[in-house]
């Protein structure tokens, strides 16, 4: 056997495919596709971030200074859509592409060609979203939730947006079918489900959620489209439709969507913390069960996003109780992470800093989520800046911090180059401080009654808005430092050792050379 396999890794760098742009257009290699997802997502992150800067600049002080209300509303809409569908989701699909085959011992994804298609659907969708800003009437000012009947009033940009959402949904469906079949079917002999790194588990569950809810989103936006142009009356009250039905449909998709974003982030954190605590993950199986329970509960709580639509009080009670229940499995996860650190031998390199930042701030976002779950309190806070603060704590400090941590963690594995540790720590601390400056004060704004999605506000909200804007610009600029760190690592980073992190123990670290060869496993690894 050895005789035959003696050269296994030697050909690691042979690329027999086309070169240049064609390599990327036609590639079916999971690592190429993973990198493309990550770069695409970063580009979208900068675009969505630029929109956030417009929003915060306008809100820096009372009165209209930077943009008019129509543009402001378009910015909030596309900032949300781009960040959710263009930045965070593709980022974690990028992680999935890179890591899942490596972590389960597969040569590639189950359907490499489909993998290529699901990536190349994204850029056209992004172009549509950008184009929507420049058609007559400007971007649609409806919020990422696209509630009718306001959506029915919008111009052509709404149609472009709907098409973009369709395409993004198609991409997600193909991506998740690929991931679910890869994780289930492509595991190397000996790699049982309960031996998989937790990241694979979180993506398996996420892919299941995606497959279950993506048709709901597709149906919802299609009905918006037919209401707009084909004289149907699903949601249009002028013809007997029910606008609230759309909200039910949207949030039936939207709440699982929140976990579609958060659950892979949990997976990344569950890889990082044990590596830097030099101690195995505490409660592996309870982590798996907790993640699965969160996923199941996510189907049963959607209407807590719409406590003020006037549903029957029994329904409000049910949704309140079900929502509160989510705190239990989420708590289990947080406790397990802390227990993993307990009596470890910790070091605090950049990935660990981001993981700790995640833990700290995501838990804070979880607590404000609990406050919002309480219906009578939510009636006060619904559609105020409190909600904005809450979901930025779970989306930015949750998903985004986890993605940053994951990139610093696996960058040496992916590229063979180390990033600059000092700059990495600067990136963390700048992000952490400015993030809190930008979003913590928004809790106070919301409590005092500042509605979200307004371009201008009364004088009592002026101080905190000014603080928030300063924080937001600081946070935005800090991300340029991140770009610099990555480019610097790629161009002139030090050569990474085989295992840069002492405590990393999943098989992409222990069985594969660093950087990972273009094709990972020629001989199925044996898991004991």
């Amino acid at each position, binding site marked *: *056997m050895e005789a*035959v396999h003696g*050269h*296994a890794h030697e*050909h*690691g760098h*042979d690329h*027999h*495919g*086309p070169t240049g742009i*064609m*390599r990327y*257009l*036609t*590639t*079916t290699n999971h690592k190429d596709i993973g990198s493309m997802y990550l770069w695409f997502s970063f580009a979208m992150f900068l675009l969505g971030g630029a929109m956030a800067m417009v929003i915060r600049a306008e809100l820096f002080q009372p009165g209209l200074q930077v943009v008019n209300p129509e543009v402001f509303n378009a910015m909030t809409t596309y900032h949300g859509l781009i960040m959710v569908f263009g930045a965070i989701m593709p980022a974690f699909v990028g992680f999935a592409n890179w890591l899942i085959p490596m972590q389960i*011992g*597969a*040569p*590639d994804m*189950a*359907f490499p060609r489909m993998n*290529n298609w699901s990536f190349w659907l994204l850029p056209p969708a992004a172009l549509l979203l950008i184009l929507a800003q420049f058609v007559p009437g400007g971007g649609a000012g409806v919020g990422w939730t696209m509630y009718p009947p306001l959506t029915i009033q919008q111009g052509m940009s709404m149609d472009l947006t709907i098409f973009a959402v369709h395409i993004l949904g198609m991409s997600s*469906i*193909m991506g998740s*079918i*690929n991931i*679910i*079949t890869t994780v*289930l*079917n*492509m*595991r*190397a*002999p000996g790699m049982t489900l309960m031996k998989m790194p937790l990241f694979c588990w979180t993506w398996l569950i996420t892919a*299941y959620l995606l*497959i*279950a*809810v*993506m*048709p*709901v989103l*597709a*149906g*919802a936006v*299609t*009905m918006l489209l*037919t209401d707009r142009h084909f004289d149907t009356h*699903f949601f249009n009250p002028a013809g007997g439709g*029910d606008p609230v*039905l759309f909200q*039910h*449909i949207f949030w*039936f998709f939207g709440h699982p969507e929140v976990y579609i974003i958060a659950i892979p982030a949990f997976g990344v954190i569950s890889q990082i913390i044990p590596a830097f605590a030099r101690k195995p993950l505490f409660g592996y199986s309870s982590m798996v069960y907790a993640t699965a329970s969160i996923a199941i509960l996510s189907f049963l709580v959607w209407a807590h996003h719409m406590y003020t639509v006037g549903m029957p009080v029994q329904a409000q009670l049910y949704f309140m109780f079900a929502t509160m229940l989510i705190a239990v499995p989420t708590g289990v996860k947080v406790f397990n992470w802390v227990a993993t650190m307990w009596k470890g031998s910790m070091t605090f390199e950049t990935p660990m800093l981001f993981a700790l930042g995640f833990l700290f701030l995501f838990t804070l976002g979880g607590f404000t989520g609990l406050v919002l779950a309480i219906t009578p309190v939510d009636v006060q806070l619904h559609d105020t800046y409190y909600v904005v603060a809450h979901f930025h704590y779970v989306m930015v400090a949750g998903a985004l911090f986890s993605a940053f941590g994951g990139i610093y963690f696996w960058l040496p594995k992916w590229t063979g180059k180390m990033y600059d540790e000092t700059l990495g720590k600067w990136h963390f601390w700048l992000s952490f401080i400015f993030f809190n400056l930008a979003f913590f004060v928004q809790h106070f704004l919301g409590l005092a009654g500042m509605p979200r999605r307004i371009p201008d506000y009364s004088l009592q909200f002026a101080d905190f808005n000014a603080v928030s804007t300063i924080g937001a610009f600081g946070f935005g600029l800090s991300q340029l430092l991140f770009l610099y760190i990555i480019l610097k690592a790629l161009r002139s980073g030090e050569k990474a050792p085989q295992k840069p992190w002492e405590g990393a123990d999943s098989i992409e670290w222990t069985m594969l050379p660093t950087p990972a*060869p*273009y*094709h990972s496993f*020629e*001989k*199925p690894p044996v898991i004991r």
Partner: protein
Amino acid sequence: MDHAYGEEPHNFVLVSQHNHSLSSTGRNAVLGSLVLVSLAISLGFALHGAWMILPFAGAEMALLFFAFRAIGRRAGNYETISICGDRILIERWESGKTSRFEFNRFWAQVVFQPARHGRGGVLALRSHGREVQFGRHLTQEQRVHVARTLKEQLRHDR
């Protein structure tokens, strides 16, 4: 990809097959549960008037079905290439069909066409104008490797 030497009458055997960690029961369970969940959701909304989720759920389930069928079909597929005395034998088992190709070891030639435009390279045995491909479920890199191994083997014993 597994291979073993020696056992008579083969001098060299190479088996290539996909990882297939999902049993057919598991496949049906996953597919079945997804169809049920998806159907329940879309029918539920259809009852409230929002029937347009149904076609999307249906299309998605169809795609999922084909994907699972594809991995199911793949699961049993394998190819072996064996050198056995002065014969080279390629046996292919694909979706329940077996095919067998025999070559004279001294006349056969290992052909490898490098990949173009993202398509994997083609590995084949050629002799007397006849060409048989090998390594359909190997990745590009594995094919390169197998080509090299086969060439070595043929040179060795010649």
